[in-house]
Structures are given as structure tokens and as C-alpha cells.
């Protein structure tokens, strides 16, 4: 049998909570197998040893919020044969993209004790806004089994089996009663990408959209349904503007656009 060299994996962090890269360490039952089959060449959260690039696969967590990071992501791209973004920060700017809807300049004047110590960009932007991305894995946080699937697909040179359909389908698969139809609970499931396993409806709660917009989604119709349930317009807008606020389908949804 041919002994292929192990692929070199790097895990990078930008503005984020660490939860998505933690998902790799949360694969308690699979972690040692992954480490046996992959050369973990750069993963500062887990190891102090560093193997120089180039890397076969880079997992990138976090959004771009500083001039330094805007340069650093270009370097990461240069030394990565494949670059996969993990999580809502990297794929949709994250919760910190809520700054994109405000006047950050005024805000900074008010807010900082020592603004001159801080270097930050006006907007929090996705990795794909800066460099070419080979695959985007959604979620705030990502689902660890989807992460394993993506790594596995990469190892076996096939397309990751990650469906772009909405949470509604996962609800049906799980046997959840529709919280919106049955209980009148506002739910973003119809416009949100699957992947979480429809956990919120399973816990009697409406989906809050943490996996971002699903493919070819209809937020206008969604907003009408929410309005029919009596959700005030301002609140509808707020519902879209959480962890994937800068995703195209969500940022203008639920009212007049007031982005910069």
C-alpha cells in the first residue's frame, strides 16, 4: 500500500470567540484518530510546536477587524493550498459585524478611554471579502460532525456532504412539531441553513438563525409571516441581525436598509 505523506493542517484565528476551533477539540472520541492521520502543523490553541508552511489545509476562524489582520489573512492564503472558513465570524462577519450598522467613528470617540491605543477597522468583514475561500462551513458555532465531514472529505478528495437546505427539513427529520405553526413562536428556521440539527425547536424555542441564510432564501416572505404573528418591525430586523448580521440575505432583511 502506498504510504501517502500526512496532510499538513493549520488552524488560524481572527476576531472570534474560539468556539469553532474548540469544536475540533470537542471531538473527544475522534481527536486522537484525527491527530494520527493528520499532521497538526500549526494550531496554537492546542500546541506550542510550529511547523512552517506551506499547509495543505488551513481552517480559518474569525472575521477581519484590524488592518493587521487584513494583511495577515493574505499571508495565510499564500501558504495554504486549501482554505476553509469555519463559523459565522469567518463566513458572515460574526456578531462583531453589528458595528457595520453604526457610525463607528462617532462611536469610538465616545467609547474609548484611550482610543489611540486601539487599531480597528470600521467594519467586520468575512474572510471571503479578502481572499479566495475554497469552502465555507457555517454556524455559530459550527457543528463538530460537519467539521469532521469537511476534513474527511478533504482527506479523501471528495466534496463535503453539507446540505444547503433550511432548518425546516431538519425539524421534520427530527420529528419536531413546528413551533411556528403549532405555538405561534417566531422562528427563523425557514430561512436558516441547516446543520445544527434543529436544536432550538427541539427545545421549544424558535430558531435564531445562527447558521446564517440558507440557499435561495426568501426573507421577505419570512418577514411577512413574522409580522402576521405580531412581531414588531424593529424586532424582526433585530432577529436577522445577530450572529450572521452581515450575510447578504440577512443584512437588509426585515425593513429598510440602514447599512452604511
Amino acid at each position, binding site marked *: 500500500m502506498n504510504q501517502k505523506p500526512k496532510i499538513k493542517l493549520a488552524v488560524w*484565528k*481572527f*476576531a*472570534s*470567540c*474560539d*468556539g*469553532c476551533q*474548540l*469544536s475540533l*477539540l*470537542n471531538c*473527544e*472520541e475522534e*481527536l*486522537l484518530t484525527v*491527530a494520527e492521520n493528520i499532521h*497538526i502543523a500549526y494550531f*496554537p*490553541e*492546542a*500546541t*506550542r*510546536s510550529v511547523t512552517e508552511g506551506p499547509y495543505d489545509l488551513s481552517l480559518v476562524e474569525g472575521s477581519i*477587524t*484590524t488592518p493587521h*489582520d487584513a494583511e495577515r489573512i493574505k499571508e495565510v492564503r499564500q501558504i495554504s493550498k486549501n482554505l476553509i472558513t469555519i463559523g459565522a465570524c469567518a463566513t458572515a462577519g*460574526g*456578531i*462583531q459585524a*453589528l*458595528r457595520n450598522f*453604526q457610525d463607528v467613528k462617532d*462611536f469610538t470617540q*465616545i*467609547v*474609548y*478611554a*484611550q482610543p489611540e*491605543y*486601539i487599531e*480597528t477597522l470600521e467594519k467586520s468583514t468575512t474572510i471571503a471579502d479578502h481572499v479566495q475561500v475554497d469552502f465555507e462551513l457555517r454556524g*455559530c*458555532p459550527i*457543528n*463538530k460532525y460537519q467539521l469532521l465531514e469537511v476534513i474527511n472529505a478533504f482527506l479523501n478528495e471528495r466534496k463535503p456532504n453539507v446540505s444547503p437546505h433550511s432548518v425546516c427539513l431538519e425539524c421534520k427529520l427530527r420529528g419536531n412539531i413546528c413551533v411556528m405553526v403549532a405555538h405561534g413562536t417566531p422562528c427563523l428556521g425557514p430561512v436558516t441553513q441547516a446543520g*445544527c440539527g434543529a*436544536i*432550538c425547536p*427541539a*427545545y*421549544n*424555542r424558535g430558531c*435564531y438563525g*445562527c447558521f446564517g441564510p440558507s440557499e435561495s432564501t426568501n426573507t421577505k416572505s419570512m418577514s411577512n409571516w413574522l409580522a402576521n404573528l405580531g412581531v414588531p418591525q424593529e*424586532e424582526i430586523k*433585530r432577529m436577522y441581525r*445577530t*450572529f450572521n448580521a452581515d450575510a447578504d440575505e440577512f443584512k437588509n432583511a426585515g425593513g429598510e436598509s440602514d447599512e452604511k
Partner: protein
Amino acid sequence: MKNKTIKVDYLARVEGEGALYLKIKDQKVSDVKLKIFEPPRYFEAFLRGRQFDEAHDITSRICGICPIAYQMSAIHAMENAFGVKIDGQIRALRRLLYCGEWIESHVLHIYLLHAPDFLGFDDAFQMAKDHGAAVERGLTLKKAGNDIVEFLGGREVHPVNVRVGGFYKTPSKKEFSALKEKLEKARDAAIETVRWTSEFSYPDFEMDYEFVALRHADEYPFNEGRIVSSRGLDIGVEDFESHFEETHVEHSNALHSYLKTGGNYFVGPMARYNLNFDKLSPLTREVALEVGLSPVCRNPFKSIIIRSLEVLYACDEAIRIIDEYEKPKVDAVEIEPRSGVGFGCTEAPRGLLYHRYEIDEKGFILDSKIVPPTSQNQNTIEEDLRHFVEPRLTLPDEKLQWQCEQTIRNYDPCISCATHFLKLEIERE
């Protein structure tokens, strides 16, 4: 060689992005900087204008390692603002959820981040080649913590079931049986962990710290208690800001906290243990004494043993809560928002986590303040480095650098948490 500089450009095996800078002049440490360059994310800013019942899901995104801590401090602050007190089984379930987070977070640090320092490996993957059984035990134990969080919260990271007033859905008693079995095994693994870590070799290093933690009359602290210190501080949570102060220093994207009366202080497992030893379960106290750990410990390197003891306590407490559980009549009590200010302080795995919110009569957030544990420990970490390094200046650079990293990792610093905020105190000045 009188003068030298030790730099660690990117600290490994900590959560978030930080660096260390140490300057040595004439055999003295002339400068120490724990630099936090994790970019600021402005949570307190965009919390304004959000509804009171959004804060816990939003602030949980400050840290993927301790989301429960953020959820708990936020909901307790909101309930405090609205004059609601949660008791009975909902209160117990919150403790159970916190047990899960302590286990998951502490075991991550013990086995994957900290133990490799003591055993001389770059990481747990290398360590697993020689200590396979130990690493396997750690991963199984870590999973038990995550299993609690997933069972009660829906998923390990940023769970979805917590709400102001209670939970979206509480489990039935019989759903707990599988979890309880796992926790009984986990408790045995936790005892093994205490014994395992107590056999590591520890540098002879003690400091005269002021320890700060919650203390509660009836229990080891998670969600409630008064803020007490080893030098006699004893205040209600609402008085936090009268006694603690933060400053913004140039080298760090995180604010540094001080006690107004006494300077540096120490939060986290060792502070909790020293101030609450009598509240640990009998089994936990027994195992502590068995491995020779006295009720007061001042060697920060031994924090790994104390974390292990807290894992044991959390397993023990989780089993007790499950045994006494009865499904509550309601999943959550009704909440009527009103204008006011609410304070919440809970014990995150890394120590005291303070939240304050000002709410208007419609339930919108007007102002907020969040003080995470790592920013409170930053000065203490720098002081430790100063005192630890000086007698060891003759060590080769590589070894000295590694020991400095280990000194920082004693605190399990969560740099993602420490930087998130960087701002708002400001407006109140």
C-alpha cells in the same frame, strides 16, 4: 550576559491571541508585559438597544469555552434588575449546567493545555504517545462535561436552552439516567486525575496573593454569593464597581483590574478553593487531603491539582442534583421587564465574571459592563512572571521561555474573554 529580552510572539495553548515580553537588565526584570492583541469586539456597544432577553445569547459569543458563564451572569443580572429570584429545581438545573461547563473547560485545560508542560511535551497529541491512557481518560472525562451541557443546552458550544426566568424546556427525571451513569464513571476518572496531577513535580514558588471569589452560606459557589477576599473584603455583587477598578494600558487590548484598596488580586479555581474549602463535598475534601493538598494553597503551579479537585466536585455535585431532581411545574417563570439596573456575578471556570445592565421600562438595554476573569488576573500574572523569572535567569533561554509560558498557563487565561470589552467603562467617566 547582563541584559536580555525574552519574547513569546504568540502564546500557545491559551484561548485567544496573546504574547509575552520580558526585559531583563542587570539580573533584574525591568519590564513584564502580557500583551493581548486579540482584536476588540465591542460587545457592550452593540448590546445597547437589544432586548433584555437577548443579552445572554449575545454575550455567550464572547467565549466559546465558557459560554455558560456568560449566559448565567447575564440572566442573573437581568433577574436582579427585575426583582425576580429563581429557586427550586430551575436553580438546581442552572448549577448542573455550570457543573458541565466546569468539567469541560477544566479538563480541556488540565489534559490538553497544562499537563504537557509538566510532562515536557509540546502538546497532548505528543503526550498521548507516552501517556495514552491518561489522555484517553482526560478526553472521556471532558466529554462527560460536554454531555451535561449538550443534554441541558442542546449543544456544547453556545447552548440554546437558557432563558431569563429559567429554561425553554426542562427535562423529565427519567431522561437523566444515561447521563448519571456517565457521571459516576466520570467521578472515578476525576479522582484519578487528582492523583495523577498531584504526582507532577512542582516548582517551589508561592506568593502572598489576595484571593477573591464568591462565597455562599450553603454551597460551593457557582451562581450566587457575596464577593469575599482572603484579606477581609466582603461585599454584595452590586458593590463590585465600588471596590474594583479597571485601567486601559497601552500594551494590551484588555483592561487591567485592580482592587481600589489593595492592588492586584487573584480569581479562579485556587481563589475559590482557598475561600470555600469547607463547602466542597466530603469526598472532594477527603481526596484533597489524601494527596497532601492543604485547605490553603499559594503555589499557582498547583492550580492544576485544584482544577482537578473542582472537576471531582462538579461530578459529585452533578450526581447529587440529578438524584434530587424532580421536573419543575413550569420551565420558566414569567418575566415583566421594568426599568432599573441589574448586577450578576458568577464563577466562570477561570473566576469571577461580573455583568451589569441598565434596562429601560420596555426592556431595552441602555448600558452594560462586563468584567471577565482573565482581565482581573492580568496584573497578577505579570507579578508572578516578575518574581518567578528573577531567581531563574541562569536557565537556558528556551527553558526559561517555556517556564514563563507555563507560569501564564497556570491561570488558564482566556484571552478571547479578556479583550472582548475594552471599552465601555469609559462612558461613565
